[in-house]
Every structure is written in structure tokens, then in C-alpha cells.
């Protein structure tokens, strides 16, 4: 596969390490009353769609960026790639 890196252009997927569902960015609030349930769902019940999937890839043999790749799991077509840090900030993650 070829991943169109937002900063570096097309790069062979073998430079990357795959993690999974991009919702892993949305780490729950550990202080929530139902934190245990939330963390359970966060870690174990990930999206597994047959179709468009937003997923995390790490450019380990590259610029060390975590990327959010939008890829179709039926065709492997990639329609969007963003820097995960940017996505995380947009989703309100901070410190």
C-alpha cells in the first residue's frame, strides 16, 4: 500500500506501523463515575467497519508522525490522511 503522507507525499506502507481505530485518540476521563466501563469500551470495542475506516498509523521509519488515515477496508482506497496531533487538538485533547 501507499500512504499519501500530508507532509512527505506518497510513502510505502512498510515504513509505517499500524495501530487501529482512530477513536483510540479519545481516551476517556479517568475521573468519570463509570470510568471502568468507558475504558473497557474505549480499549476493547473498536470500530471494525467493512468500508470507510479512520485508523492510526505511525511513520516509524519516517518522520515519526502519528497519522489518521481514512481507508476503505473493502478496497483499501485511501481518501484522507491527517496528522494525528492536529486531529487530537481538534478533538479537544490538550494536557
Amino acid at each position, binding site marked *: *500500500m501507499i500512504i499519501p503522507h500530508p507532509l512527505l507525499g506518497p510513502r510505502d*506502507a*512498510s515504513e509505517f506501523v*499500524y*495501530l*487501529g*481505530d482512530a477513536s483510540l485518540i479519545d481516551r476517556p476521563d479517568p475521573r468519570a463515575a463509570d470510568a*471502568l*466501563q468507558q475504558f*473497557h*469500551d474505549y*480499549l*476493547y*470495542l*473498536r470500530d*471494525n*467497519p*467493512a468500508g470507510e*475506516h479512520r*485508523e492510526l498509523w505511525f511513520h516509524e521509519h519516517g518522520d515519526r508522525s502519528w497519522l489518521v488515515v481514512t*481507508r476503505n*477496508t*473493502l*478496497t*483499501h482506497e485511501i481518501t484522507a490522511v491527517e496528522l494525528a496531533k492536529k486531529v487530537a487538538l481538534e478533538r479537544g485533547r490538550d494536557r
Partner: protein
Amino acid sequence: MRYSVFRILEQGLTGNRGWKPVWREPDPKPEYDILVIGGGGHGLSTAYYLATVHGQTNVAVLEKGWLGSGNVGRNTTIIRSNYLLPGNQPFYEFSMQLWEGLEQELNFNAMISQRGIINLFHSDAQRDAAVRRGNAMVLSGADAVILDQDVLRKKCPFLDFDNARFPVLGGLWQPRGGTARHDAVAWGYARGADRRGVDILQNCEVIGFDIRNGACHGVATTRGAIRAKKVAVCVAGSSGQVMELAGLRLPIESHVLQAFVSEGLKPVIPGVITYGAGHFYISQSDKGGLVFGGDIDGYNTYAQRGNLPVVENVCEGGMALMPMIGRARLLRMWGGVVDMSMDGSAFIDRTLIDGLFFNGGWCYGGFKATPASGYCYAHLIATGASHPVAAEMRLDRFASGALVDERGAGAQPNLH
């Protein structure tokens, strides 16, 4: 029609005109006691044991494609019971015991071939782990032998002992491990279930569940609605999609596992051999093809095909381990969608919906489990209680923390 050498002689002398169909091709009835969704190995064996062990014959197996078109028709055919954890090993040993004698029971030759499986180790830490595993195997009633390098040199002289990046120190050998003719297993179970009245409905895809006030009353299919008291899902790589129809999320990801076969060759590989320092395992089919594989591609996918890097990675492992296979030609490579669970172990459990059962999460190791999976699933469906050897294969183990994580890789499906 019972198969035997005499039948073959009789048919041969009469122009092979008298062979009977192995299974019927019935139309769906409006209602069954039990629906098994998924006409793969596990689904067919479930139906078979429902009929033979529990006398449940008002059963239909729903298959969206052709019978056995899932992973049972595209795996690398290995059978073994060399697991580590109490949540797994007794189950797989039970499965191994069912394999032994299965052909006579089914009256169908699945070429079960117990020529042994060797897991090689390459470091002291790996040897310690192999010993721990071997002892767990023996505790479960299985057979296990630790082979040192000298014995291995005699058993497998073709391994690279002297120029290897990761020298072979020894191996964990299970003499009863081996291979089986994967398609024949599906056909044998299908034939056995069919003869006892089970309807096997091919080209019948489930497109919805009839779920009312917390209970499942049937399914909608491409061949019409079918009512049932119990619905048992058993669809491996399609688990996520099918259970989504029932509104359930699973601790499962779908990944592709590639497999490979070489041109036919005279026998050269004694049994099953697994590399401990790379992703490679191999056996040789009765027809002579080297059947081998390695790691999953590692990304979520429903496409039954993989990519080149993994192909290269697998062949690197093969060449590092047994450089004699270099001039053998790779004939065909394919991919199967596997249901990778969050701790690498499977589920045989009821769901939050009454009458809806789930069997899945077999990762890349479902084939060897086929008999026990069907047996235990049938037990759960028929009796409502988990079979003892499958008691830990629960969907709620992630909430309780009672994981069954053979590799200790954590909640990362592509590492299991």
C-alpha cells in the same frame, strides 16, 4: 450412501454412475428450532453435533456463499493442541481428541495426518517459555517433547543450524500434531449433518435479525425470513458485520492472513515446523505442495488479499530457516479474513440478546478448533450452559480482566 473401498470397486465397475449427492439442496423452511449462521467448518460441525449429540435436527445452516467458502476452505490445515493457558489448552486438547477418529465417525476421509508439529526455539528465554508450555500441555493430557539441537539435526537436517542469524537451539514437539485436508473436513461435517436432517442452505445471506424486546426470534435472509427459537452466529471474519445487524459491538477486528502453497514436490518436510525467530510455518500436503504462512498483514481489512511486504517477510523466514526451499516455486498465494480478538483467544458465549449466541474471535487459528468449537457451541446452544473446556471463552472477560492472552500482547489484535 456409505463410503468404502467396496463402494469404490462397485462404482468403478459400473462406470461411477451410481454416486449419490453428498448433501441435499433444500429450500428454506419458514421456521427452525435452531439457525446456525455460517456454513464454514465451525458452523457445520456445530450443526453436526447438535444433531448427533443433542438430537437437535430441526436445524438449518445459513451460508451466504458456497459451503465451506470461508476460512475452512483457505487455511493452512494445521491441527495441534500446544497452547499454554488453562483457558485454551484443555479446549484444544479436546479438539485434538475429536480429530482422532473423526474420519471414521464421519465416514469421510479428511486425510488427518498426525506427523507432528515442532515449534522451534532460539534463545534461553524461548526455551523456558517452551518448557512452560510443554508442561501445560502435558497437564492437559496432551503430548509434548522438548527436542534438543542434536535430535533436531537428525529429524530436520535441512534446517540452517550453522549459518543462521538466529541459531536453532531446539524445539517443542507435539507428535500428535499435524494436518488435515481442510475442505474435506467441511464436506464431511456437512454430509454428516445433512444425513441427519439438517438443512444446509447455500447462497442464503443473513441481512437482518428479528429482535423484539431483548430476544432474537429469527433472521431475514436473501432467501426470505426464517423464524427460529435460537440463532447461533458463527461467521469468523464477518463477525463484526453480522453482529452489527444485531446492534452488537465486539472485541474483534477483521484482518487478512495470507497463505501460500508451492508447486507439487516429492515429500521433503516431515511434519509441521514453526520458526521461532521470524514469521514462518510450513507443512507439506499429501499432494506434495509446501503449504506455508506467517503473520497477518496487520491492518483492518475485509479484502481477501494481502500485500507484498508480508509475502517477502514470510519467505525471508522460510529461507532463513530452511534455505533448501529456495528453488521450490511459490504457486499460489491467497488471503483469508480472520477475526482477531483483543486478547488473541476465542469466544463461545451467549449474547445480551436472548436466543442469540456468538462463536468467533478465532484469529488465525480456527481450523484446528473446528471439532471442539462445534461440539462446545452445540453444548451451549442445546443446554444453555458452557462446556467446561470452553468456560473461559466469554465475551465479558475484558470487563472482569480475566483475559486469555497467550502472547501477553495486550489489547492489540495485530500483535496476537
